[in-house]
């Protein structure tokens, strides 16, 4: 089944984000979803599909965030509903499948978390297997740091490469009033002066922890034409899930799942890397951005430091990357940070950070997005374009 250009993103939903205490995880899902529905120019009566992102452990006193609970609070009765239990990041693919099969016409994809103000993240850390916790091993930073360290052993990479990613993305965040670090500039010196977290990662190699939510609405290209904003067409999707147990994995220093996912997405879209105007790359850590772009084929192993140098990914650069500031400098909304930013850029709604003349960059026709989960165990790539 060919789905190229048959489906489109038509609305984006935001919530207050950053440190937003006194809110449940559910409330961010619900507010973001309602905002996305209104943004698309739709009403709740139109929404017959709901996909909620993987949820984290509910904080004390809060319910488990299931899609039916989100639906209940939105006052909708979808004919299609789904949620992934873990990090597969298949939501756009599921939305297309549901639309293609005729199960529904308008799908909302939602994410929300009160990660900064609740005890949810601590619960998540302590859910690690005992084979890890007995050695004091907790959380994603250290797993990705293990991957990054192996990469440092295999090819030329490390903080001298990652500083360009951290600083470059911060420059985008400084143009985005919604970004958690909008007011905080960063120099290379700041990057190196920041404290170690799990070496080889310093503080600014790590993504933000956020209270907030994000959502978007997907429908057919045909229906999209009647809605409020210029639709964003879904040109291609690819996925690859190496899955391997981190301890046994051979993909930590690449090639990760991004390689096959990227090849498939570009092939489905019928375009090449040369046609891509900007990238929104899942950036849980700086190294993730490097290895993803490397595996996509933008540069060879060890060539990242030279490729990033000179501001290539920054405002004014030849290949803008993570134009909202990304997970490192805007906010952590899982893969929806990337998808919604690409959609907003292609709709032309990004203000000071808008790709094109406003930022001395190419007017965007095609944006490549990625998403990954686990420790590079799952990867997805999406090619989005102007309709």
């Amino acid at each position, binding site marked *: 089944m060919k789905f190229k250009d048959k489906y489109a993103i038509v609305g984006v939903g935001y919530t207050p984000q950053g440190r937003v205490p006194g809110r449940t995880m559910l409330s961010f899902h619900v507010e973001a979803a309602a905002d996305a529905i209104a943004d698309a120019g739709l009403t709740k009566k139109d929404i017959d599909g709901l996909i909620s992102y993987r949820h984290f452990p509910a904080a004390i006193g809060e319910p488990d965030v299931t899609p039916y609970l989100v639906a209940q609070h939105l006052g909708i009765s979808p004919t299609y509903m789904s949620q992934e239990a873990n990090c597969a990041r298949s939501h756009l693919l599921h939305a297309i499948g549901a639309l293609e099969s005729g199960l529904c016409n308008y799908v909302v994809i939602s994410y929300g978390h009160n990660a900064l103000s609740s005890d949810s993240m601590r619960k998540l850390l302590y859910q690690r297997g*005992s*084979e*890890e916790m*007995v*050695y004091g091993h907790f959380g994603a930073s250290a797993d990705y740091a293990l991957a990054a360290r192996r990469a*440092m*052993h295999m090819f030329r990479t490390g903080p001298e490469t990652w500083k360009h990613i951290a600083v470059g993305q911060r420059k985008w965040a400084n143009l985005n009033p919604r970004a958690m670090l909008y007011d905080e500039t960063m120099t290379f010196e700041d990057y190196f002066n920041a404290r*170690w977290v*799990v070496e080889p990662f310093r503080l600014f190699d790590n993504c933000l922890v956020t209270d907030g939510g994000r959502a978007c609405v997907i429908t057919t290209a045909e229906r999209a034409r009647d809605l409020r904003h210029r639709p964003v067409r879904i040109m291609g999707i690819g996925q690859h899930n190496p899955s391997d147990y981190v*301890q046994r994995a051979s993909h930590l220093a690449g090639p990760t799942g991004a390689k096959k996912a990227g090849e498939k997405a570009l092939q489905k879209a019928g375009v090449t890397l040369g046609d891509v105007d900007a990238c929104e790359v899942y950036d849980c850590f700086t190294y993730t951005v490097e290895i993803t772009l490397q595996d996509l084929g933008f540069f060879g192993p060890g060539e990242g430091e030279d490729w990033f140098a000179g501001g290539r990914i920054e405002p004014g650069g030849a290949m803008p990357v993570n134009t909202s500031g990304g997970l490192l400098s805007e906010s952590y909304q899982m893969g929806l940070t990337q998808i919604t930013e690409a959609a907003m850029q292609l709709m032309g709604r990004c203000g000071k950070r808008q790709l094109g003349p406003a930022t001395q960059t190419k007017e965007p026709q095609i944006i490549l997005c990625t998403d990954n989960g686990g420790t590079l165990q799952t990867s997805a790539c999406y090619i989005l374009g102007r309709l």
Partner: protein
Amino acid sequence: MEYTKPLPAVNADNEQFWKGCADHELRFQKCTQCGFVRWPASIICPECHSGDTELIRANGKGTVYSFVVYHVAYHPEFKDDLPYVVALVELDEGPRILSNIVGCAPGDVACDMPVEVVWEDITGEWSLPKFRPLS
């Protein structure tokens, strides 16, 4: 002194491994069909799907595949250990296991460095395999 860090949580899959550790032995499942030595423990071989398995005892020697240095204690009981090293150790028999590198400064650890097991008896019941530079 009471041991207050997390303890191994034993389940039907990993029981043989932790029982082995109590005897200061690194026990792994080896597929008798294809010879693959697997970790984590599992009901079948992920390489060939055979369920025919024998337990082998690893010699306790290997190399550091990768390592990190913790500067943040995500669990309060590890605060006094900072900075400490968590590593993936590739054993001579094939499997890679997560552990700590002890007996040297964090700055002296390197990828591919030869290491050997050293047992830490944490309670009367449990022992953890840790690794130190090969003497």
